[in-house]
């Protein structure tokens, strides 16, 4: 899954600056210049933070606030049109909307599939490509290449592959005589979500594979060698030595995957536009439809607020309970050592 735009998750092992510095043992109260030096430090710090703070408030916090405000109204989006206050009406309507409930279910299915299918496959490939194979670098490049394509390009590519008349999928399946099976990738309501998942996996498994490869390099050879010398089988070495030491990488990979699944839009929009009949629709697509097609901007904003809250709650809980060992100084364990 694609990483979120603002990567404010710290990779494992990074030590951030202290946010709340304890009182320093300063000089005697009479000495002026060190104390003024400290005040000047803070003032310079504030000046340098201000541009970033302005951008952050203006481009992130501000719009979130405006969106929260807009979600309480019924509005058709024109700046000249009045906004009708409905309180939490949009939200109650949202949780009674069959399409939105379906979006939550489909998003959940995509998350579970990613965690159960995509990530283990990436892990397995990474371990394979860590062996001294011939052409290992070439394979690593090959598997990483899909990640480099843009989502829209990938979507258009697979539209051609899945085309019922002249698509590559039909050709390839035809070689084994299964071409009837291959016609309905995107038009059968029961399987369209899984077809979308196949395309997403094709694009992102390379990214996770590279993450795991990088994490694997951090495991000292002596540990695995020691385990082998002690008589462990390759599987036991993997399970007891490699896997636990890959823990931080795997936890980050899961985090990025889940957040990416919640925010998924491009791939679904290009492949199916959420169709047929909402069978592959996700929250962001519903948001787009209501906001820009139906001109129900207040309702669409309510959807965006719900998406935001889901991501936020997940991120906070995940950092607090899962990543706690890997990160110190994160917002949820601030102050505790």
């Amino acid at each position, binding site marked *: 899954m694609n990483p979120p735009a603002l990567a404010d998750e710290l990779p494992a092992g990074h030590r951030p600056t202290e946010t709340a510095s304890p009182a320093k043992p300063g000089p005697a109260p009479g000495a002026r210049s060190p104390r003024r030096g400290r005040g000047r430090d803070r003032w310079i710090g504030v000046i340098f933070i201000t541009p970033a703070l302005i951008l952050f408030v203006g481009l992130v916090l501000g719009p979130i606030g405006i969106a929260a405000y807009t979600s309480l109204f019924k509005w058709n989006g024109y700046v000249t049109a009045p906004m009708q206050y409905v309180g939490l009406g949009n939200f109650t309507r949202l949780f009674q909307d069959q399409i939105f409930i379906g979006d939550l279910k489909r998003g959940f299915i995509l998350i579970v599939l990613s965690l159960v299918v995509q990530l283990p496959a990436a892990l397995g490939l990474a371990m394979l490509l860590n062996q001294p194979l011939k052409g290992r670098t070439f394979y690593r490049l090959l598997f990483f290449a899909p990640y480099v394509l843009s989502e829209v390009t990938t979507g258009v590519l697979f539209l051609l592959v899945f085309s019922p008349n002249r698509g590559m999928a039909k050709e390839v399946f035809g070689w084994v005589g299964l071409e009837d099976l291959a016609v309905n990738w995107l038009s059968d309501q029961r399987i369209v979500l899984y077809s979308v998942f196949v395309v997403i996996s094709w694009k992102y498994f390379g990214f996770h594979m590279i993450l795991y490869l990088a994490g694997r390099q951090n495991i000292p050879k002596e540990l695995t060698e020691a385990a082998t010398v002690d008589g462990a089988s390759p599987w036991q070495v993997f399970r007891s030595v490699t896997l636990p030491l890959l823990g931080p990488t795997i936890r980050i990979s899961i985090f990025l995957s889940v957040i990416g699944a919640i925010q998924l839009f491009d791939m679904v929009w290009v492949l199916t536009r959420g169709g*047929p009949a909402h069978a592959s629709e996700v929250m962001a697509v519903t948001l787009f439809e209501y906001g820009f097609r139906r001109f129900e901007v207040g309702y669409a904003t309510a959807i965006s607020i719900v998406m935001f809250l889901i991501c936020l709650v997940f991120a906070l809980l995940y950092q607090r309970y899962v990543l706690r060992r890997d990160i110190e100084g994160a917002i949820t364990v601030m102050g505790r050592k």
Partner: protein
Amino acid sequence: MTTPPYLSRRSFLGLTGAAAGAVLLGACSSGGSGGGEPGVQEIDWWHIQNGEPLKPVWQEFADEFMAANSGVKINITDRENEAFKAALTTATQAGNPPDLFQSWGGGVLREQVQAGVVKDITDAVSGWVGNIIPAALGPYTIDGRIYGIPWDVGMVGFWYNKDHFAQAGITSPPATWSELLAAVDALKEAGIVPIALAGADKWPAHFWWSYLAIRIGGLELLAQAEADGDFNKPDFIRAGEEFKRLIDKEPFQPGFLAAGYGAPDGQAAAVGNGQAAMELMGQWAPAVQAANTPDEKGLGDKLGFFPFPTVEGGKGKSTDVFGGGNGFAVGRDAPDATLDFLKYFLDVEQQRRAAETGAILPTVKGAEDAIKDPNAKVVAETFAQATGFQLYLDQAFPPAVGTQVNDSVAELVAGNKSPAEIVQDITATAQNQ
């Protein structure tokens, strides 16, 4: 002075400077197209004819007008249909409409009028608007004032492959709904895909349901629904049931639920390449079919047209017409030259030139003789004899209701909801307005 151990002050300053520079550069590059030379009127023209045969014709008109009027510059932006709707939405919602843009009139235009983003051109066009066919002007007149001018008007009907019909033993086009269902059976017997449908685009499917509603309940049914937002009427439900009878026969091409209309493997291509026997589509159908064939000629004289059949026991007349046109609306801040260009565009000579391409049916009286294509002539004659006219539902109604109609019919086609359920959904949306 305390400095973080891993980042020296110099590199920190360097980073901040680089970041500030990047932000400034980004701001510079995204500057808008405002301004220009003084004394030159710039017209921003957004149209959706992004291919043959009309794109070059529109370009010619613009070039000729600019040559004749030195103080005018026309900036053309042409986009595909859906992309245009998305771009127009953001522009008009922000209060920044283009000067001249594609419009189908109806409820969407009404919302734009209420938001004050389009110009009232009633007075400006009073000198020449009398040349336009009144029925075509209807959707562009809101509360008695004119906000746009149509340059194409037509109706939706069946475009069919004469060879396929002959092969299936169908001697004459069906005149009643039962005859149409029988024709579908005959085509399936002969191993031909009866109907091409773009399930992914949704609006082609709503043509079927709307026409059935018009044939069963008459035009009054839709006028009433537009007024009170209540679709929960027996005639609407019967329209859904009749449509379901057709859907249950599985008459559509394989993979139709994911097919687009103008896509290379979509509805128009299926008919144009002889893979399906017929489609229910508007007057532009032959042009789009041809554009999606390898030799760009389409079916040629193998293509025939017949109007939507009557439904037994229905109140609607066979001469009631469902369709729409294409026109341009004028943005609120458009310079005066825009109206002059519009007048030039709608001149009978320009209409003749556009009609010769076969892609439009002219709205200006006196240009009909330029229609060469025999099928286009049939459509024009059928339209000329129309006793009543209904604009596409997804344009006639406000955007939310129109989108709901499309979505609901798509759910009927996919087999997810019943005819009674979809009218409830549409009513709920209409009354939530």
